[in-house]
């Protein structure tokens, strides 16, 4: 299966602030599916998951640095192919 179809995933802690983060991820990644496990939320999507700073800030109503994603993430599957000031991309490369 090629890289565009294989599942990537991000697990985040279940929390009030992360609820907003998950909303932003859902909005920017229509193919994402969500699974609730005790204490955490598992996001999965074929090919890639993108997190955009602007989408998160819009919903949070205040500034948010992409680095703050380190406080939310529990685990992931895939490769972090981009992490800059504006976005984080987790995807398979090959």
């Amino acid at each position: 299966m090629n890289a565009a179809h294989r599942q990537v995933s991000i697990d985040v802690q279940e929390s009030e602030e992360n609820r907003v983060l998950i909303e932003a991820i859902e909005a920017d990644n229509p193919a994402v599916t969500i699974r609730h496990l005790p204490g955490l939320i598992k996001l999965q999507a074929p090919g890639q998951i993108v997190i955009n700073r602007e989408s998160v800030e819009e919903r949070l109503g205040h500034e948010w640095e992409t680095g703050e994603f380190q406080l939310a993430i529990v685990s992931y599957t895939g490769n972090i192919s981009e992490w800059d000031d504006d976005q984080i991309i987790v995807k398979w490369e090959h």
Partner: protein
Amino acid sequence: MSIESPRAAAWKKLPLKERYALLTRDLDWEPSYIDREQLYPFTRYEGIKVHDWDGWQDPFRLTVDAYCKYQAEKDRRLYAVLDGFAQGQGHLTLSDASYLNSIKLFIQGVTPLEYAAHRHFAFLARHLEGPGPRFAALCQSIDELRHTQTQIHTISNYNKYYSGFHSWSKMHDRVWYLAIPKSFFDDAMSAGPFEFLIAISFSFEYLLTNLLFVPFMSGASFNGDTPTMSFGFSAQSDESRHMTLGLEAIKFLLEQDEDNVPIIQDWVDKWFWRAYRLSGLVAAMMDYMLPKPVMSWKEAFELYFEDQMLGGLFPDLDFYGIRPPRHVDDAIAEKEHLSHQVYKILHNFSSVAAFTTKTPDHVHLDWLSEQYPGTFDIYYRPTWEKHQRIEAGGGRMFVRGLPQQCQVCQLAISFTEQDDRRKISFRRSEFRGETFHTCSDGCKWIFDREPEKYVQAWLPVHQILKGDCGGPAIPDVLAWYGIQTGDNGEYNGSPDEQFWRAWHDPSLRHGE
């Protein structure tokens, strides 16, 4: 909000990539009065060829200021949870006191590994040649120390009320079942720096981390143990960075030189199986030690390993010529059996352990039958029902004797043949005229690759029989282990169980 100086504000405005470059690569220098080989003596002998250390990028682009800021915030959040739990008498609100046996296994088995990782990543932070991987290793070294401390701190609250939480660091060095995690990490630390990266950063932290750690955390959440869940998730957030280091390490080494590919493949083969065998303890914990189970080992294995790693990661690594680990099919074939066989070891020998076990009751057996519909009723349920009959007659079966252990993984040799699940799989090798026993094709392959290394294994059972563990009799050994009466044995009737009942039943509180 604090008021920032103009200089700090200007610094903040620098793009992430630029800040990262300034604070890592730009702080590095070329040695002038000694050569690189003298400065970095450990990066050549394993046969790995690196042509350009600058090819190593940290996708997190973590800098020292950002690291301190986020780690402080993580600790602040964790300690708020710990305070709340202690103030709210959280030790009474668990699903059941027997749940804590999994946390005893955690502090005895896992916390000392965090400390070992702290030490060895400090070594890598000194000895890797590129500034990028050195800084990532430095952060990880500090992370691992933080994990050690937060775990000790969190779990110390239970030490006030429950047995088995004292002396864990001494136990880790001495007790038979803790030789399983200890020997795993010792094996990695005594290898070269590149093998260590593939062993710990890639195989342990990327390939199997979700099976090794997330089940403990979800189990904690489901069983009312919010402090463990919180330190777990707090540690896991660092773990994502460690996973990235592991994946970056393997890709970097594979890209540097084609000659690296077969060496890396060998290490992936070895360390997959080592980490998988270690995960047997987690499998037993998930299926047997959680009063409220989260998901079965089989389901977790399918989700986290088969779907995510074999389905997602390995096609990506195929690009570099890496195939799925040798013996992976044996692990898949064993997914219906692993947890039952490992818990049987713990149940047979908790008389000499710093935790207690119990025979699963009917409700629990029904859950296991449901989770393992093709196998549990055939191979495992009848034995547990025999234990129930023995206990109904007032007995409790512990094995009076010491188990035969695998020379490599140090688990009791308790696994069975794929074509006959009732037949124990014995494997053996001869080396320098001596016989060495292993539990599986995977462990035998690892032994035969480096027999000179594994003949030195400190096998707890043989050490006891040599008389090197406090004395010849079991009470001597228990004393030497640091195990006190009540830490070990059967859960029902244990101090933990009796206290738990008294704390929850006012009619039993007389004379307290």
